[in-house]
């Protein structure tokens, strides 16, 4: 999942970005509102984390603009404004969640997870197909009850495919949602990651293949009949 973080405090921005990356999210971060708006318009994010008081354009204006353009990306405000009036104002302007500083990283991760699930219409953190299952809150995957050892990137790829199971996912979409601005994916990075993931989820020789290639289109996670 790819997240945009717009926060003007350098120290907080870097710490949050690091925590999210370590948790398997692809994170783009900026401290300027105008840059944040541009990035939200240009890229496809799963969640936007916005501070309200920002240089350039404030967080509420960014929200207004992207909602005005029809983008339904979930937005979570991270702000020091703690009054009920501020919270109500933020939520009524179209935000999906509101978190007052200082906050716990665990809570932030749980809220981001809930927003991601909601955007992919998954009501519970446990998502499965055949005997493959992931837990989006614990960030773990298992097959036939056996826990899979996946890197953060591999888990993110599997989670994205699981969220969109049954649908063809293009390489570009995978790049947009799995890799952030710090990574410059080569043309075969996605293919390589898919190959590794296939290998890791095939726990035995008779494991049912679940990730299928659609030539010229991308990949699809499904049970072939």
């Amino acid at each position, binding site marked *: 999942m790819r997240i945009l973080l717009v926060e003007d405090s350098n120290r*907080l921005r870097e*710490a*949050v970005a690091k925590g999210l990356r370590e948790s398997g999210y692809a994170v783009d971060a900026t401290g300027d509102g105008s840059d944040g708006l541009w990035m939200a318009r240009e890229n496809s994010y799963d969640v936007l984390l916005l501070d309200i008081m*920002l*240089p*350039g354009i404030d967080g509420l204006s960014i929200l207004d603009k992207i909602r005005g353009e029809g983008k339904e990306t979930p937005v979570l405000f991270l702000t020091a404004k703690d009054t009920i009036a501020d919270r109500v104002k933020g939520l009524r302007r179209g935000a999906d969640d509101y978190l007052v*500083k*200082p906050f716990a990283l665990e809570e932030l991760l749980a809220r981001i997870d809930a927003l991601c699930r909601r955007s992919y219409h998954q009501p519970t953190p446990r998502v499965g197909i055949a005997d493959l299952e992931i837990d989006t809150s614990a960030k773990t995957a298992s097959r036939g009850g056996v826990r899979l050892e996946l890197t953060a990137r591999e888990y993110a790829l599997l989670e994205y495919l699981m969220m969109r199971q049954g649908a063809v996912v293009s390489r570009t979409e995978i790049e947009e949602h799995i890799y952030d601005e710090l990574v410059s994916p080569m043309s075969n990075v996605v293919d390589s990651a898919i190959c590794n993931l296939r290998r890791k989820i095939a726990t035995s020789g008779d494991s049912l293949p679940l990730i299928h290639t659609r030539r010229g289109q991308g990949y699809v996670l499904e049970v072939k009949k």
Partner: protein
Amino acid sequence: MTSIRKRLVTWLLLGLSILWVAAGAGVYYSVQRGELARLDARLTKLDSPIRVMTNLIPRHILSDDVKPPSPAATPGDSPTRDQRPQREDRVLREESRSKALAERWENFSQENGYQVQIWKPDGTTILKSPNLGEENLEKPVNLKPGTPRFFPITGKDGQQMRAMAIMFRPKGFGFQRLRGNDPAGRRPGSPPPQNGLGRRPGGPPLQDAPRFHHLTAIITTNADPMHQTLANLLLGITGIGVIAALGSIALIHFSLKSGLKPLDKLGRKVALIDASSLDGRFSSNDMPRELSPICNHLNELMSRLEGSFEREQRFSSDLAHELRTPIAELRMMSEVALRWPDGANSDQAKETLEIAEQMQGIIESLLVLGRYENGQTDLQPEPVDIAGLGKACWKPFAGRATEKNIKVQLEIPETQTLETDPKLLRLIFTNLFSNATEYTPAGGVIEINGSSGMNGMVLSVTNTVSDLDDESLSHLFERFWRQDDARTDNNHSGLGLSLARTCSRALALDLQANLETENRIVFSLKKEN
């Protein structure tokens, strides 16, 4: 709690009641006085007839000087030949008078219903109207001749009557009148003049007037019609009074309801004011003139309240931001370092220290502000070398000014001194210089000038600014105020200028900021007048 409506109703009802009662009483007593005057005038007209009729009373009754006539010759009484016709004539005259008196008296009392009683000074009744019968009126005392007295009396059957009492002396027709200016200068009882003076033509010679008694008379007339009229009048006044009272209550109720409607409306509007509606104002256009000043004052109050509320909200919000953000930074950095310890390094420790110092600075500034605003000052004044202190305070900012390529002009006379607390003055200078260095754009100018001995000026700091308007200028000394709404700069919390002004006040100095031009701001530190 008092009520304007209740108070007005009470006073209006009380006032109108008094007015109605006074008006009714006035009408009643005017009519009563008129009626009495009418009765008294009628009685006064009887004065002359009474006097005239008393002349018909036999003279010997009216005066001790007149002997009663002998109705016939008695044995031993042998008048002379000359006296005999006179005596007969007198007897005849007396009889004629008595007869005339009896007729007039009968007519007088019967036709008009008047009751009359006349007394001699010794209390003997000499005349009484027949309609009195056996009844006697009470003889009035202390009357003065010629001055009638009017008073009410009650008849024996309870009849209300009006009486007039008079005292008079009968005129005594047929006698020589004695006057004070009698040219003959005769005294009463002196012999008549011999030249035939006093003789009526063809009549017997006039006699000297005897001294008649002062008679007291009472004439009464029926006052029942007057009392009936007054009773009817009282009934009418009472009826009108009741109707007027009911009408007044209805009128007062309607008038107050209508008159107090704007006040009720204003009260309802005021009751709806809360923290979320401080931007609302009262329109004085649809209010009566009397309420316009209240509306205007309420609007001024609301305006001040709105300003205070906004400042308070801004202060709370800014304080929250200034403290929450560094705490959030600390917490997040700590959590990340604990969960993924590989990334922890000395840079993080340095950042943690910076955050701690930033928070410490905020708290210390707030404590200093609170202490000096509450008057907890422990000033230790001494002569302070302004030039030396100014240069010493500027030193830490010189490097930063050079980095930003700021042109600095520091001109403070070496001889300039001020008797003040050097610790607080240092705090003021430091904050002013820090503000100037931080907010002067790169390549700008900072001018620090000492006093020229004019206008009590201590120090002025002028520096180049960008995007500062009069609105921003009005907030410049507010706590945590920053021109940058995003409050991005972590090096400053927005307390410096607020602290400088509070310290200035503690030192009886006045710190003001003015925009000299669009791009130049001047901070002036002066002695308070």
